[in-house]
């Protein structure tokens, strides 16, 4: 009996260990694969080609700047929508709303997070893009702005649920102390609770942004995919082409081991590095928060 128990424990421990380490191994393998398929780009396409302004791969124009610019402008736009709305929603759910509204809102936000992005893209094409075109009198509704709004919608649930958790974990005594000192409810939220949850909120924003930059289907459907370098002040009102949409649109047709194939993996590598950077920044912020909490307890 005793030996069986020991064996069970041994197997379970190992299973858990293997699953834990496998995550690391998979990330390492993906990174290796991207490096192997993407790095030949540097030998095959000249640096001046990669930094040119023209992306037209079937004629060997591999200018990455319009794609990077497209991803950046759509992501920044999405952050401008998602961060204020997401944070306000999180504050409302955690600090202001009555119990019943909170019980209703939390699951609703999670449902919003579960909507497939292709569905959002479809709504974007049929409703949002025509509406924005008439409202702002644009040449076309398939613009970076349309993509930003929809991506904002995708990032909001992530921001809300992580930020709400962070606000929730601020000790009750903080709020009580602030209120006892005569602060209004708004002053308590703005000057005490939010700063105390600052790192968690920062994590929420970065995870939301990471979610937005990696999103593919929606942007491919609504941003028009024109590879224009978005450097003008009004670029957000014109079509752009993102890195993710480029990979998704072109990978299916590309001949294996051609320069185009390697460049697409190189773009994938850039995306991987960007989202890795965002995640590292987010977990550093998380780690700092834990240390802070430990300091308070001691």
């Amino acid at each position, binding site marked *: 009996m005793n030996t069986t128990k020991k064996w069970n424990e041994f197997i379970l421990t190992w299973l858990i260990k293997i699953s834990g380490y496998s995550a690391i191994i998979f990330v390492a393998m993906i990174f290796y694969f991207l490096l192997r398929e993407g790095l030949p780009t540097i030998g095959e396409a000249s640096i001046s080609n990669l930094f040119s302004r023209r992306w037209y791969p079937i*004629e060997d124009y591999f200018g990455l700047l319009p794609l990077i610019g497209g991803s950046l402008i759509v992501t920044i736009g999405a952050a401008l929508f998602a961060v204020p709305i997401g944070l306000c929603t999180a504050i409302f759910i955690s600090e202001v709303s009555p119990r019943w509204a909170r019980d209703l809102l939390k699951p609703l936000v999670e449902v919003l997070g579960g909507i497939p992005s292709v569905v959002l893209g479809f709504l974007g094409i049929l409703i949002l*893009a*025509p509406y924005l*075109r008439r409202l702002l009198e644009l040449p076309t509704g398939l613009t970076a702005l349309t993509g930003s709004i929809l991506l904002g919608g995708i990032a909001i649930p992530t921001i809300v649920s992580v930020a709400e958790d962070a606000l929730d974990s601020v000790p009750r005594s903080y709020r009580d102390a602030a209120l006892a000192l005569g602060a209004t409810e708004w002053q308590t939220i703005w000057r005490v609770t939010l700063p105390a949850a600052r790192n968690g909120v920062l994590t929420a924003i970065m995870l939301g942004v990471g979610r937005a930059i990696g999103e593919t289907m929606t942007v491919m459907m609504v941003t028009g995919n*024109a590879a224009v370098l978005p450097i003008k002040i009004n670029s957000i009102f014109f079509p752009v082409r993102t890195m993710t949409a480029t990979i998704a649109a*072109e990978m299916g*047709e590309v*001949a294996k081991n051609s320069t185009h194939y390697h460049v697409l993996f190189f773009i994938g590598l850039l995306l991987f590095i960007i989202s890795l950077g965002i995640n590292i920044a987010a977990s550093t912020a998380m780690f700092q928060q834990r240390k802070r909490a430990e300091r308070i307890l001691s």
Partner: protein
Amino acid sequence: MKNLAYIVIALLLLFLTGCNNGTAPSTGITNPPQISTIVNKGSDTLVNLALAWAEKYHQLYPNVEISVTGGGSGTGIAALINNTVDIANASRQIKSEEIQQAENNGVNPFEFIVAKDAIAIIVNPNNPVDQLTIKQLSDIYSGKINNWKEVGGEDRVIVRLSRETNSGTHVFFLENVVRMGNPDDNTLFSTDTLLLPSSEGITSETRDNPNVIGYDGLGYVTPDVKVIAIAGDASGTFILPSAETVNQGQYPIARDLYMYTNNQPTEAIADYITWILSPDAQTTVTQLGFVPIK
């Protein structure tokens, strides 16, 4: 121990019935083509037509299963090169480097022209422009003409729509319209051309937006967009795309649609292609808005 025996018996039974299912239908076939599965892949332009043919053929000969998928001409030809399909559909002719790759893989592409297609130029129904020359189209798509009033329309910005670069329609349009059929011409699409991943994307934007010019296969044009008459040169007559004008060679933006097999096909595949070229199958071509051969 008893349990184990049951499991073994159950597995054996499962295995045996599995074998039965696999072998039983292969006897007693009466229809001419013996039981077979034909894998057919490629051009998105051709996919609806290929599906309609496959369905009709399956009704005629229930023993033949034909699986049809799209993905683009290049995808289909790549699959043929890798010998993973029986028939590759393409809306362009196979390139010499693709033939080279195929031969390196021991595949010998064999060509059939199965239908004809015309590219229709479409605009919003509220756009007053009715006709354009190929030269004007080229200037519009390469970014030299940017306002509808330069081609006799309203004072509106022109928004150019195109299929994605992986589409056979895109390449055909680039070579025959943007570059006007001149192989030494290096003109490219204007960078602000919107590349839409699907025909549906082009149609829905054209239906909604009066600034737009788009192109797509004649088979995909819906009644809620306006088709433009095209002239090969400024002195030529303006022709609307239709079955007659394409077959008589009058409409300037038309092309052949191809199916490729590995070597000259035999057995089931040969029967299928022979049927596709028959008048019976070619009526389906007309029904889907393409142009039948001959």
